[in-house]
């Protein structure tokens, strides 16, 4: 009780920040109609605590909601199931006020108890959630993780419409975590009834509900007529057809049978589509919060030498690699992608300069080059990209043999300190979980990731930078966002000076849609809801 009074007092000091310009509804949008989206692989699961692949991420977003949400088509946070919130002065206590009248798909109204249940569930080891770690800053997380508690100490139900979350340390990314799928609110009775099959029988508060799922063939989402956001969704239903090859999907799109090929435009057809003005007009291009990079293991010679790592950075012809993938990416010169806040705009990076690279190698005493191995995932186009990199390296005297393995094997090799000298990250890493620069640091560049089984494949551990990163994430005052972003920019610039990576490219997203689909372009390359924000798109052929 006393805590609550004190935190409320502090809360008055930090009112809810001014909400970013919220979404302006499209005047052309009319409700009704349905669309067909195709995928090659069957959907794994629709359980928000478990689903973590790029295919089911946006589906789960449409079936469930969290306390926070994003303005459609952007990376700006906005209130979700929490209509407002207060943050204490020290940034450790969040009080969320829930929206009244929100109903689950089974008809029951959502309350604060559901929020507590959902957070306890996702952090409970029995749920086996891959995203449990995101909640690490909540007080009592460690007790949940080692099994000594079954409820999070830091999540308290104040009253049926208010939840208070206490963190063990200030965390500037916490609101983003609240917008993650893992933080979706689920009803206890539906989870209990379905047991381990909740992933096949999802019940949430989202704009759509699951109407049908025929394994291996089709899923159908039906409009939630009781959805708490007025006016949306526009579509009556979304049908996902699975088992469709990308080339088949594209042909069916051209025939008018399919509205969005979920796996994108197949490389073989890319030139044909973009070369035809009628078709190219229906392709939306956007950036992704993704970077493809080559890691150099600083624990394995000769990559422990700074000059060698810099030399490799200068040896790779990124334009040619982009050409190999039909130009569907932009060359990258730093770890963060351009659309990520904190991106350093004027940074030039290491130039493509094979002669200079050779000189650097000579400086390091390796003028005759050396032999090494480049690990890569064995699905197209990654082996081709690896071969292009191999050729570039050969140009400066570095003989890299390619080890093209199954994804799990590359990941396993990267997680050992002495197995993989170089890894091309394509197909495996790294795309941001949420639009914040800290997501690109911790697991893949920070000391915490440089452990056995970790994803910091360059085994780069700079305690100084770790401290700077933590300091940056402690700046929770929304008025000081600029300063925080500057701190992050400094961190990544320091990383580039140490050059444990060679950033190669940032993939662009190309979403093709049928003639009848309407809605702003940004909805079709939504950075969060990939590929399409189903809640806000509409069709133009409704009566």
């Amino acid at each position, binding site marked *: 009780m006393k805590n609550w009074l004190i935190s409320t007092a502090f809360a008055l000091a930090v009112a809810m920040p001014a909400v970013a310009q919220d979404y302006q509804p499209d005047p052309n949008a009319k409700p009704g109609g349905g669309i067909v989206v195709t995928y090659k692989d069957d959907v794994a699961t629709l359980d928000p605590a478990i689903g973590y692949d790029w295919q089911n991420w946006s589906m789960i977003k449409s079936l469930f909601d969290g306390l926070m949400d994003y303005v459609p088509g952007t990376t700006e946070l906005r209130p979700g199931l929490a209509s407002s919130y207060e943050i204490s002065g020290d940034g450790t206590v969040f009080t969320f006020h829930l929206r009244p009248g929100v109903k689950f798909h089974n008809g029951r109204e959502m309350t604060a108890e559901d929020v507590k249940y959902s957070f306890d569930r996702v952090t409970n080891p029995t749920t086996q959630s891959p995203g*449990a*770690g995101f909640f690490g800053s909540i007080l009592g997380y460690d007790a949940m993780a080692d099994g000594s508690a079954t409820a999070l100490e830091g999540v308290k139900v104040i009253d049926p419409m208010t939840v208070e979350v206490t963190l063990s340390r200030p965390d500037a990314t916490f609101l983003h975590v609240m917008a993650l799928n893992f933080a979706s609110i689920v009803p206890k009775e539906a989870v209990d009834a379905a047991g381990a099959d909740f992933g096949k029988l999802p019940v949430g508060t989202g704009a759509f509900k699951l109407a049908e799922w025929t394994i*291996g063939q089709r899923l159908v989402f039906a409009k939630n007529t009781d959805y708490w956001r007025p006016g949306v969704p526009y579509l009556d239903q979304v049908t996902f057809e*699975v088992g469709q*090859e990308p080339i088949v999907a594209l042909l069916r799109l051209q025939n008018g049978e399919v509205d969005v090929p979920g796996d994108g435009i197949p490389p073989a057809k890319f030139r044909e589509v973009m070369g035809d003005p009628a078709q190219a007009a229906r392709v939306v291009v956007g950036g992704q919060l993704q970077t493809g990079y080559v890691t150099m293991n600083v624990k394995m010679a000769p990559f422990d030498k700074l000059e060698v790592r810099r030399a490799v950075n200068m040896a790779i012809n990124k334009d040619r690699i982009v050409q190999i993938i039909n130009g569907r990416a932009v060359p990258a010169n730093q770890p963060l992608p351009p659309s990520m806040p904190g991106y350093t705009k004027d940074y030039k990076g290491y130039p493509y300069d094979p002669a200079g690279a050779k000189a650097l190698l000579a400086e390091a005493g390796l003028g005759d080059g050396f032999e090494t191995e480049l690990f890569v995932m064995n699905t197209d186009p990654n082996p081709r990209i690896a071969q292009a990199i191999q050729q570039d390296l050969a140009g400066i005297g570095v003989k890299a043999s390619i080890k093209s393995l199954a994804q*799990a094997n590359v990941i396993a090799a990267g997680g050992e300190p002495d197995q993989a000298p170089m890894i091309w990250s394509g197909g495996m890493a790294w795309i941001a979980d949420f639009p914040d620069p800290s997501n690109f640091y911790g697991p893949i560049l920070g000391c915490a990731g440089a452990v056995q089984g970790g994803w910091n494949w360059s085994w780069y551990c700079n305690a100084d930078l770790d401290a700077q990163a933590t300091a940056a994430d402690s700046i929770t005052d929304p008025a000081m966002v600029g300063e925080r972003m500057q701190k992050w920019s400094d961190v990544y610039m320091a990383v580039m000076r140490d050059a444990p990576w060679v950033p190669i490219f940032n993939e662009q997203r190309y979403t093709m849609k049928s003639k009848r689909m309407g809605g702003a372009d940004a909805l079709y390359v939504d950075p969060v809801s990939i590929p399409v924000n189903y809640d806000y798109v509409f069709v133009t052929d409704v009566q």
Partner: protein
Amino acid sequence: MAAYLFHRLLQSALILLGVSLITFFLLYALPADPVRQIAGRSATAQTVENIRQQLGLDQPFVVQYWRYLSGLVQGDMGRSYLQKSQVSELIAARLPASLLLMAGAIVFELVLGLTMGVVAALRRGSATDQTLMIASFVGVSAPQFVVGLLLLYVFAVQLGWFPIGGYGTFSHLVLPAATMGILGSGWYSRMMRSSMIEVLRQDYIRTARAKGLARYRVILRHALPNAILPIIAMIGIDVGIFMGGIVVVESVFGWPGIGQLAWQAIQRIDIPIIMGVTLVSACAIVMGNLLADLVTPFIDPRIRLR
């Protein structure tokens, strides 16, 4: 007869047990860690260990295998690591598609193979015979994925006669069934040819002709049925060959069967699914062989009797 059947069934059960043991061991001895796949890229070391414990993957091999077997006996093939669904459910949902594909392949290879064999036998020694036999060799030597891609390209993409992969109607079935059947038709045409030649040499055929029966009548009513009998026994063996082919063919045509399921599972190290599909396939092979062995004794005596 009953004793023989019982003996064979017991043997089959033991073989399947052996298959399950070997497969389980191979998957257990994997250098890559399936738990890391499941835990994903944002999991802390603690989360990874928690998941490992939850799935019982920290137990020694014998314990894990025993648990699996106990579940199996009750009809529980475990849950997919990545999808969390019941493996039995996933396989049951996709098995009909694979069975349909196999049925289609059998029909195709029998129709094509037997026709080729009969024609070649009747025109023995001629150019037709030679051509047909070369064709059958080609059928046996062609890699299935190349045949599949070729058929897809010529008949679906260029000519548009059939849909480009997918599932649902008869026309979706034609190309994949043809791809799988071409291999078998090569074998069957040669076997049919030999069998037919052998039958045509028999006395009773000459007798029928001497009696004045029309040639076609003789062939259709006397030669063919006897020539086909040994072929029928072979169909059971085919199952084994099909089981291998479905992975590739279903992948090329996007056919939602257990082959596609297995390939996806192998890439993601989803061990329960790999175990499930391997056992189902082994079961089919063993049953197919058993069927062939049961049918054969019925076939031979009749030929000799006549």
